[in-house]
């Protein structure tokens, strides 16, 4: 299992992130992105002009890498790639492709990025929906991802009889971590579980607090080879595995997936653990993409954390919080409470946590699971600060 193509060969060496309230970014989307990339390079001690590859995802429409060259001073562009898919499901697939290109010797330094500013790209929901929308959905009054994911969330919630305490534990953990993170939207927030229970319906069964934030922002992660990483400024965070995929019977099927009461990570989790030779038991923490709470819980269970039957015992506030929880999750606040740049915050926090830079440190953390958004094909990864 070790020695598989990507295992330990590529490292994240820099992160950069800007985040503002939705519609309130003081910079254009392009400039937000350039600033995030420059920040990631500064974090690593690398000249931005030395970045030769770029990968994005989620229908990033305006930030084609060749257009970034004049502002970054790029000397030579060797990779300009985007992952298919309108939502955040492809976020880790972007890391997979970037890592494969570095491991294969095709590129030296790659930035994985996502930028979204309402002024440029419209409401995120509208941008995602433009990818999926057709008359089958619109004729049924569905014009937003919250709606078609709400159909799935109801099946997940009901078929698996999810106790409210399970969801509340995740929400409370997110807000607990965000309250301690000066960069989080909910920094200093005195969240109470009643805030969740009393929050208004958006799309039943989803309440306001079941849903992620919307922000303007840009996130960038700089990757390079494990060898080159050792010469840069910060402790490297290695990618042990990153996979993308789905099985037959899943996909963009007008809600006709064979297996519907799932988030869709079975294929991804199976290959992730097979390729790394690890399991959920080897993970010290997790950063889980939660555009919606029920789907995040499903993602963790589909990777082997707990089970539907045992969820109420394992998903407790005490278990999910740093520093001493059995399995800290979303240690910067997650998409619910830190902010939402289409999931880039999950990857960025994984890197920070494993370097010891998190606002909510997990003592002796060596490994972190990172999951991307729902929607086939989805993707997930194992990051680590040492190579087991």
């Amino acid at each position: 299992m070790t020695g598989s193509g990507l295992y330990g060969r590529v490292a994240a060496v820099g992160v950069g992130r800007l985040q503002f309230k939705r519609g309130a970014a003081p910079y254009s989307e392009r400039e937000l992105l350039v600033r995030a990339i420059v920040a990631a390079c500064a974090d690593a001690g690398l000249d931005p002009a030395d970045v030769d590859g770029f990968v994005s995802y989620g229908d990033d429409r305006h930030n084609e890498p060749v257009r970034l060259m004049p502002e970054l001073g790029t000397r030579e562009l060797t990779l300009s790639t985007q992952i298919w898919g309108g939502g955040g499901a492809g976020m880790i697939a972007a890391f997979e492709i970037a890592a494969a290109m570095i491991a294969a010797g095709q590129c030296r330094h790659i930035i994985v990025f996502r930028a979204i500013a309402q002024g440029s790209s419209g409401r995120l929901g509208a941008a995602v929906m433009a990818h999926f929308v057709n008359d089958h959905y619109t004729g049924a009054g569905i014009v937003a991802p919250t709606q078609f994911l709400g159909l799935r969330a109801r099946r997940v919630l009901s078929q698996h009889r999810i106790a409210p305490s399970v969801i509340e534990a995740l929400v409370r953990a997110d807000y607990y971590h965000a309250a301690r993170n000066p960069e989080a939207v909910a920094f200093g927030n005195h969240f109470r579980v009643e805030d969740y229970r009393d929050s208004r319906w958006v799309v039943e069964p989803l309440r306001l607090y079941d849903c992620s934030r919307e922000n303007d922002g840009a996130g960038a992660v700089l990757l390079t080879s494990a060898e080159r990483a050792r010469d840069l400024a910060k402790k490297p965070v290695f990618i042990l595995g990153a996979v993308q995929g789905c099985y037959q019977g899943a996909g963009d099927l007008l809600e006709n997936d064979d297996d519907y009461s799932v988030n869709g990570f079975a294929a991804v989790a199976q290959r992730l653990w097979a390729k790394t030779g690890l399991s959920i038991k080897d993970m010290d923490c997790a950063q889980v993409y939660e555009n919606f709470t029920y789907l995040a819980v499903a993602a963790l269970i589909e990777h082997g954390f707990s089970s539907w039957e045992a969820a109420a015992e394992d998903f407790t506030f005490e278990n999910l919080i740093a520093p001493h929880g059995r399995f800290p999750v979303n240690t910067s606040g997650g998409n619910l409470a830190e902010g939402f740049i289409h999931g880039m915050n999950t990857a960025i926090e994984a890197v920070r946590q494993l370097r010891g830079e998190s606002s909510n440190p997990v003592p002796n953390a060596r490994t972190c699971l990172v999951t991307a958004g729902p929607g086939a094909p989805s993707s997930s990864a194992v990051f680590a600060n040492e190579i087991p």
Partner: protein
Amino acid sequence: MNAGSETTGVTDAEPADAPYWRGLREGRLLMQRCQGCQRWKWPAVARCGDCGAWHPPWQSVAMRGVLYSWIKTWQAFASGEDCRLPYVTVLVALPEAGGRRLLGLFEGDEAQLGFDAPLQGRVTVTRVAGAQIPSIRWRPA
């Protein structure tokens, strides 16, 4: 109308689901079933991925189903006469079409919403986002 009859084939230039929309405009539900392997195909396909047959044909199906999932929208994502808040959207499984699921707006008594509740449909249009889209309205059977 003969429930088992097939339509004429699609022309090559049409999207695979053109007969579905034609059917709704004529007031009926047509669903696609592969002539090679007998599987019901939804979303519609130009080629059956299971057995390789091209242009699986379409046949009439009764608008009877069971409730698979549903949502009630409280936020104004959509505009239009038929999307006045709050409104219920259902995902309906068709036992007569291999369990394939259709999306549609719900009308009638929301107290009857529950998994596997029997539903019946009628063809209409949905006025949403400035358009009129042929669609099926579902109500408790």
